[in-house]
């Protein structure tokens, strides 16, 4: 009798489990199907195509193995574009993270009209990259540009200064526009995390005699770690994919050309489609690996300690 009841209970449990599993599968199905159709399958197809020679000027699409990947190792233009890209990433991610956290902390202190400040801050991010770049193109203009006019007003010798005639000032000019566009996102992500920190932690710290910097480093920073990791991941991926700013401001200029412009030239100018695909895959892999480092590091510090 007891055994029969137990068997029935087991069967009911299994049925419920099965029902939960089916429900779970149904609930994740839309995202799984979407990811398969729009990410996994195209990625697989791109990987497969990158192992072939796909150039409409040449007959057939023969399998060439890792030929495209080997080619990029000896491609001087690609090498130079990678160096430029790494410089962009290093500057953009560090500046966006540091200024993003500080700006978020500042906005977090504002009690009245915060929504208006946020709306103003988010505007550059809301604008298309090309629009931002064209605005800055006018700002950087040698003759009537705003930047030169401001510097001249301060008595500095910047009349008709051409910012893009020097590689380093040109790169700086490009990355400033990128930071201008992406910084708001970092601020918003970090600010959201800051607002979720319970106030009583600060009150307790205050009673214990902690100073504001001590509260920032011992309470705020550790508790926004995950958000900072997300913001840095986003900043890294965006900086690796820098295109609009470099293209609008400096075109194919060798000194400022990032890897994505190089990919564009290889694909749409030189019609080496599979080489462009191989370069794109390497770019994706590298930006994901770098992002993963941030995520894992912050995950450990915030979860395991």
């Amino acid at each position, binding site marked *: 009798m007891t055994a029969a009841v137990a068997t029935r209970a087991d069967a009911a449990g299994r049925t419920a489990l099965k029902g939960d599993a089916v429900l779970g599968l149904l609930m994740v199905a839309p995202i799984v199907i979407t990811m398969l159709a729009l990410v996994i399958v195209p990625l697989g197809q791109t990987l497969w195509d990158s192992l072939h020679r796909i150039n*409409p000027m040449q007959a057939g699409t023969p399998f060439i193995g890792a030929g495209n990947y080997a080619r990029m190792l000896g491609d001087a233009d690609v090498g130079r574009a990678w160096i430029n890209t790494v410089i962009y990433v290093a500057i953009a991610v560090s500046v966006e993270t540091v200024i993003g956290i500080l700006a978020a902390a500042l906005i977090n202190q504002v009690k009245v009209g915060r929504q208006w400040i946020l709306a103003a801050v988010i505007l550059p991010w809301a604008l298309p990259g090309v629009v931002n770049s064209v605005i800055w193109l006018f700002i950087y203009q040698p003759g009537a540009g705003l930047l030169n006019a401001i510097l001249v007003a301060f008595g500095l010798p910047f009349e008709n200064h051409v910012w893009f*005639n020097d590689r380093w000032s040109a790169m700086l000019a490009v990355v400033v526009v990128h930071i201008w566009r992406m910084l708001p996102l970092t601020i918003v992500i970090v600010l959201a995390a800051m607002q979720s920190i319970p106030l009583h932690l600060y009150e307790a710290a205050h009673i214990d005699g902690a100073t504001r910097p001590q509260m920032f480093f011992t309470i705020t920073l550790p508790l926004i770690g995950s958000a900072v990791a997300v913001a840095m991941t986003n900043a890294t991926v965006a900086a690796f994919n820098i295109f609009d700013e470099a293209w609008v401001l*400096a075109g*194919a*200029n*060798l000194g400022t050309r990032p890897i994505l412009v190089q990919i564009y030239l290889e694909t749409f*100018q*030189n019609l*080496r489609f599979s080489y462009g695909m191989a370069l794109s895959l390497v770019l994706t892999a590298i930006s994901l690996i770098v992002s993963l480092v941030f995520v894992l590091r912050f995950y450990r510090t915030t979860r395991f300690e």
Partner: protein
Amino acid sequence: MRRRLLLTTIALSSLLLAAPALAQDKPYAGTTITVLMPSPQSPEIAAKFEAATGIKVDLQTLSWDDIRPKLIAALIAGTAPADVTEFDWSWTGQFAAADWYLPLNDAIDAETVKDIAGSTIFTINGKLLGVPYTNDFRVMLINRKHFTDAGITDTPKTLAELMADAKIIKEKGIAEYPVGLPLSPTEGASTTWYLLTKAFGGELFDADFKPAFTTPDSAGYRAMAYEIELLKAGLVDPAATGLRDAQINDEYFAKGLTSIMISGEPGRLGQMNDPAQAKVAGQVEAILVATESGQTRSYGLLEALAVPKASANQGAAIEFVKWFTSKEWQVENYGTGVLPTRTSALAALNDAGKLQSGDVLVEESKYVEALFPQGTPTWYPEFSTAVNTNLNSAAKGEITVDQAVANIATAVEEAKVE
């Protein structure tokens, strides 16, 4: 009543008899085609073409630089970006190799091909892939008032005279930077260097496409050195390293800030002498391209109309190409700044006194050569980018002219490997 019936019968019979003839005149009437061309184009194109053929046109315009990526994205996918598209001279090698466009030999009559001399540039392996519609060969444009104000009465025929005149204009304070010269990493910088290479009496490549611009005594090397010399002498605005040719035309020459456009576009004459579009209206004229020897040379940068093989309306599309390149439309369309490609249309405009600097244009047109007499190579875009990026770097002082020409030659050899 009987009379009315008779009249009705006659009218209906006439209509029935005329219908096949009408259908023959306008065999594609009612069809709608898409056309993709660079902006701006005449707003009257669609209405006039429909009136002539009964074919409706959905005319799409994009900036010239944006057209190529759109074409390639569609063509590589096996679809037609439009039924008729822009087809630049510099794409002929690549697009012919890719076999994306319909040969028009059977559709375009021999008389038209003869009247449009530039058709040869678009004929690859005997296949006519595009019919030129805009005659973009190069002359030099000068602001005659600047020259007169500087006390210069003679027109410069040599490159040395040109530089000397520019120095006088600068010294007299008429223009701070008298020479308009694009040095940005854009196609306009490349095409100017090609023109100066011709002006120095040379070619870019030999018959086997081996670079002919690497030694210091070669025309290409000297052309680049000449450009850098103009820049270093303060005759060219240092900001030219970031300016496209169109920007120099619109924001400098049209406003009277420069006196000489080295690589002048004949089609710009109308714009430059239109008071609504330029401050220098009435001051601008074309001169023959100044060269080292004094004997002018030029080359064609023609743009054509072509029909993708993937077009579903090839017949109607060909009708558009024929209409757009007809003598009548070319004469009419000159008003919007498009210089005719037909010799007969050019002559008609000149005879009517409508062609600005007409005598110079007709004279220069006799010396227009193909940039690549062997046919535009498939690696042309790669070569062009190597030219303008290295010229840009040399202009900024990042590399020497020696390094620039060596880099360009290396890029060509690498591009030829595939």
